[in-house]
């Protein structure tokens, strides 16, 4: 952080200013409609994964809560939306809201546990809660379909007009719009005094209460919000693909989203989105290979990022740009 600001207000306002690169990015997100029509389903998957990574970024990147069980909320959202669709209520938007509420409710309950722990105990507890939910969904096969997944989900057209087509035009439009709206919410949160205090908690959880900002209350709030957003991402997946498999709750999904976020750059709004694009496109391109070998490259990339790019690809790029500017000026 360089440069002094007259007041925190000014600092936050400066941070919240829309930059040209951001506007260019969101315009570029429309390109698949024109150039990559065959890849619209993939694009919608990317948007959903990006939203999931964004929700993890809120707790991990900004509040410093390491979670190895974040897929729990993704899965709750997916099952909530899927069950609604299966049992006769296929209206997408209200399904999204209900899924978010369900995930938020569980997230709120879990946040009381999460806020009390740090370090290894926290990692193990989030991991354990994720596994618990996975096992519970597996056992309750009457409700969730167990290992066979939830089938027979019937989605109604969006606004009663736009059907979910085979090419994914509606799916991508829907996912992208929801991603953008959620992104706006996250962006507003991060650039508020609340967001600033979250970063304070990440840097020093003992000092924040000393200056009058209770860590636990803040962590509970952001954890609930992140759970709701993860639930929305899960619901989007269920609605756009009309299936829910047990894998939405799996450890693999929690690990994948962590990898995606770290690759892109945690603690940066666009980190999860960039990570999702790189990860999903690479996986799509290499899917001809055995998935086991695909993980070789992901593992290598992860090691390289931890070793050489502590702030992810986005952090590395920001450093490169700032050093380049420094040299030219």
């Amino acid at each position, binding site marked *: 952080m360089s440069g002094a600001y007259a007041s925190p207000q000014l600092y936050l306002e400066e941070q919240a200013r829309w930059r040209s690169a951001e506007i260019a990015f969101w315009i570029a997100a429309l390109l698949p409609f024109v150039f990559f029509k065959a890849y619209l389903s993939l694009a919608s998957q990317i948007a959903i994964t990006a939203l999931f990574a964004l929700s993890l970024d809120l707790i*991990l990147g900004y509040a410093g809560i*390491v979670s*190895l069980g974040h897929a729990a909320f993704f899965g709750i959202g997916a099952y909530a939306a899927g069950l609604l669709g299966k049992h006769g209520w296929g209206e997408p938007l209200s399904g999204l809201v209900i899924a978010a509420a369900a995930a938020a409710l569980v997230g709120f309950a879990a946040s009381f*546990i999460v806020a009390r*722990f740090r*370090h*290894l*105990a926290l*990692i*193990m*507890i989030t*991991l*354990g*809660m994720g*596994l*618990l939910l996975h*096992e*519970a969904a*597996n*056992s309750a096969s009457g409700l969730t379909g167990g290992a066979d997944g939830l089938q027979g989900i019937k989605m109604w057209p969006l606004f009663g007009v736009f059907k979910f087509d085979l090419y994914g035009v509606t799916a991508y439009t829907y996912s992208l719009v929801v991603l953008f709206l959620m992104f706006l919410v996250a962006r507003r949160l991060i650039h508020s005094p609340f967001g600033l205090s979250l970063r304070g908690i990440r840097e020093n959880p003992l000092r924040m209460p000393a200056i009058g900002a209770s860590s636990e209350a803040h962590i509970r709030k952001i954890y609930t919000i992140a759970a709701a957003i993860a639930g929305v991402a899960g619901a989007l997946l269920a609605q756009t693909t009309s299936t829910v498999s047990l894998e939405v709750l799996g*450890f693999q999904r929690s*690990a994948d989203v*962590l*990898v995606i976020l*770290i690759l892109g750059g945690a603690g940066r709004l666009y980190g999860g989105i960039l990570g999702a694009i790189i990860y999903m496109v690479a996986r799509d391109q290499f899917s001809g290979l*055995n998935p*086991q*070998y*695909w*993980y*070789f490259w*992901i*593992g*290598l*990339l*992860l*090691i390289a*990022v*931890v*070793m050489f790019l*502590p702030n992810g690809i986005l952090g590395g790029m920001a450093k490169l740009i700032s050093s380049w500017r420094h040299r030219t000026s």
Partner: protein
Amino acid sequence: MIGSIFGVLFDGFAYGMLLFLLSVGLSVTLGMMNFVNLAHCSFAMLGGYVTVTLMSRYGWPFLATLPAAFVAAAAVSVVLERVLYRRLYRASDLDQCLLTIGIVFVSIAIAAYVYGTVQQPVQPPAYLQGSLEVLGVNFAVYRLFLVGTALAVTVILVGALEYTRFGAQVRAAVDNQRMARGLGINVEGAFAVTFALGSGLAGLGGALASPMIGLDPSFAFAYLIYVLIVVSVGGLASIGGSFAAAALLGISDMAGKYYVPELGAFLIYLVMVGLLMWRPSGLFGKR
């Protein structure tokens, strides 16, 4: 009925000892050195594959492959420690987690490339097969062997760490690096040796476990969760704690599978989350 309860207790205890053998190395690396080493089971998997290769391709006897598994895992871990781990001793939990998850991914891919994704058959020698019957209860010989090995490892390890000069140096280096360095202890060396010891034990555990639980590339993830549960529930840096936690876990898992199979692994995870919420630093943890 009594016989079946004893049978479940014994099988559970033997399974717990298997988990203990797999995880005791982690209670050294994670517990003493504070490194969140999620790649622990990759070293165990390496040990398992060393045993498989030596037995099937070179015709070594099973028992002779066990030290080889220890040495191979320790040797590979020293290389990784010098190149990668060493740089992250002071890094955050998250960075350590990520680095080691990366190593797990790579190790799974390599194992799948070399050995394929099929289960590797490991047959213990004839004198370790079969079972003994005492008072109407069947004791599988291999399980008795596991229990005996686990007890021997515990005694040797506790003895080495608590009562030898080297053990004292390691504990000093881990507790207070600067002070230890000031006293002329080779801290770097102590760390490297400790790490090799932990990973070598993982290799040994993997080799011993493979006849019972099978060996395929997913081993590195499948048992990671159990191993982490044992170490975090038992308490970091507490070998006795790991022993107790492993026995508890093994028995409750076996009893759960036997009496309430529909619950699956649910019970184990519930016990873990509950115990950790009650005592975040583990049953026998000091910190």
